[in-house]
């Protein structure tokens, strides 16, 4: 196809952002608009340059990368853990986790709570305090387009769905053979007898 480069006015900016791992979502109004209108041309151009432009129906664009550097692996793990810890946190609060995830502003207190709840996991990724969590995770989420700043607080954006999708793929993990929630009780009594 014929790509009219003059028409892709935001090309430099878009390529720079996407190639550094940024996720363009609807809040990046100008870039989003540009990608939305000329999706085909951008997609073809980036494919020719060796990058796969992906559009998600929930409102974000990103480059599909199948090899991430080791360092990015760690960052992505931190994002995953933080997202799941937030889901757990909101569910325990009695809120619908999916809605709360995108609606509730994430404050320092919330970060401190999830850190405390999942300390032994965050610890493995060298996050030891809410300040660490803010610096290592939330600020990076800003940089990669997973969150936006709301004053002192953070708000998650639609690219977080990438982690929720991954979460939905873990069904098989929970299946341990011969396990059921009702059975543990009988064994309590057994043990008490011993």
């Amino acid at each position, binding site marked *: 196809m014929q790509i009219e480069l003059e028409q892709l006015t935001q090309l430099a900016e878009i390529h720079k952002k996407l190639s550094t791992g940024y996720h363009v979502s609807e809040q990046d109004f100008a870039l989003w608009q540009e990608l939305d209108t000329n999706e085909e041309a951008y997609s073809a151009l980036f494919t020719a340059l060796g990058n796969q432009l992906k559009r998600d129906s929930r409102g974000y664009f990103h480059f599909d990368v199948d090899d991430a*550097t080791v360092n990015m692996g760690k960052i992505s793990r931190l994002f995953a853990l933080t997202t799941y810890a937030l889901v757990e946190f909101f569910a325990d609060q009695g809120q619908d986790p999916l809605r709360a995830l995108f609606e509730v502003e994430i404050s320092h207190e919330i970060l401190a709570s999830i850190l405390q709840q999942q300390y032994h996991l965050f610890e493995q990724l060298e996050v030891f305090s809410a300040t660490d969590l803010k610096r290592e995770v939330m600020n990076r989420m800003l940089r990669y387009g997973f969150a936006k700043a709301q004053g002192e607080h953070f708000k998650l954006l639609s690219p977080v769905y990438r982690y929720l999708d991954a979460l939905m793929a*873990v069904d098989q993990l929970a299946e341990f053979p011969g396990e059921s929630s009702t059975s543990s009780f*009988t064994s309590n009594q057994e043990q008490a007898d011993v």
Partner: protein
Amino acid sequence: MHYWRDGILALPTTSHYLQLVILWSIPINFLTKSYEFMLSAKKIIKCLDDHWPVLETLVGRSTLGSFSFQDVQALIQRHSPGFSSEQVFREAQRLLHHEVLIPLAKSSQLELNRAVLEFIQFLTQEHQLGTVGDIQSRIEDLDRLRGKLKAAADTKDVSEMRRFIRLMDERVREVVKHFRKNESAIMHLVEKAKADDTKLSLAKRYSAVMEAFDEYIEPVLQMIDINAPFQHSMQALEHQLSELILNIEQTGFLQSEKEPLVQLRTRLLDMNQIGREALIRSTDVLMPLREELRKNTLISRNASALLAHLRKKGLEPTLEQLVPKFSSDHQKFSLGSANQITSYMAELVDFQDEAYQMPEQVDPGDNANIRVPDLAEVLKSARVQKANTDLSKWLAKSYPQLPVDELLFLYQELSRAPTLKLQHLEQYSTLEVNGYRLTLHPFVPTATSGT
């Protein structure tokens, strides 16, 4: 592991070791029957290692009841498909022989050796919740030992003191073990309740959790309440230990017992702290379920299941495959990232050679190969041949392929050579050499030289 926030980093290894020792010491009390052969620890460990997946499955099943020898064989067959039926039978026999599996009384059904079961539960962090009684009885024992220690100290009976200190130390470690084990058990209960995907009513789903709260958390909270006997015994014990230590410091008597006493006191204070923190954490995770606040959606259920999995199996292997990947600054700036190399290789697959017309080589002719004649030789041959014609014409005739510049050089040299006796003519002569036309006053030999 759960030794974070303890503030005592040196402890876990020793307490781990002790836990193992305690766990393995159980069968001696448990199996009152006398056996003719000794249990070989190494062989049992080897057994556990060889049949770990089988045993892990059996641990899961053992909460449901006993199983048959055929079940075990079927499991071994499933995990080692290469085995012949004879091998499977032998392996199942081996588990039985080493008492990893134990037959139930008056039945052909089997169950896991209690010690093995608890050991595996300890390793997989799937403890079963103990009772308050476990902790209570140790505390009472500590109280009793306190009296004995005091009596021994009063009579200055060193060996008895030593014995009581060791026993008290043991009790304290056991209490700590129970606190930790029960915290882990509550985590396990909560995780299971949260991740359970069966369509149970809330009351049913959380029944185990509720019971854990009522049967364990509440009583333990009451027990360690500031006005409860637990605190009094702890304070009394700490007071007594401090007094003993002070006494040793002042009198210098029983100096060798000071160190164990200090250790015991530290461990005692730690025990208190660990117990409180474990309880706080347990209450934190139980509360949302007890209050029926917890929102159960597909996502929250999966999040719980995953976090539980990470807690038990470690972070790296699971998240590794799971997390989405995105590129990094590093990738942008590094030229040889795998992505680029892959696409380059992919392009190589489609590579087709293209005929490219190289430019024709320009024929340099023979000039390049011509040997420039030596001046002395030329001079000699000029003299010998008595070239008495025009010098330039003779040169052109003798060396027809010589480049013009070389020719002119020779011409000039020869013209100056005294041996040739040349004279310069007035008239012009013209000759063509390799496409150049030269016009010059030719040198010819003088009349005398010719003769």
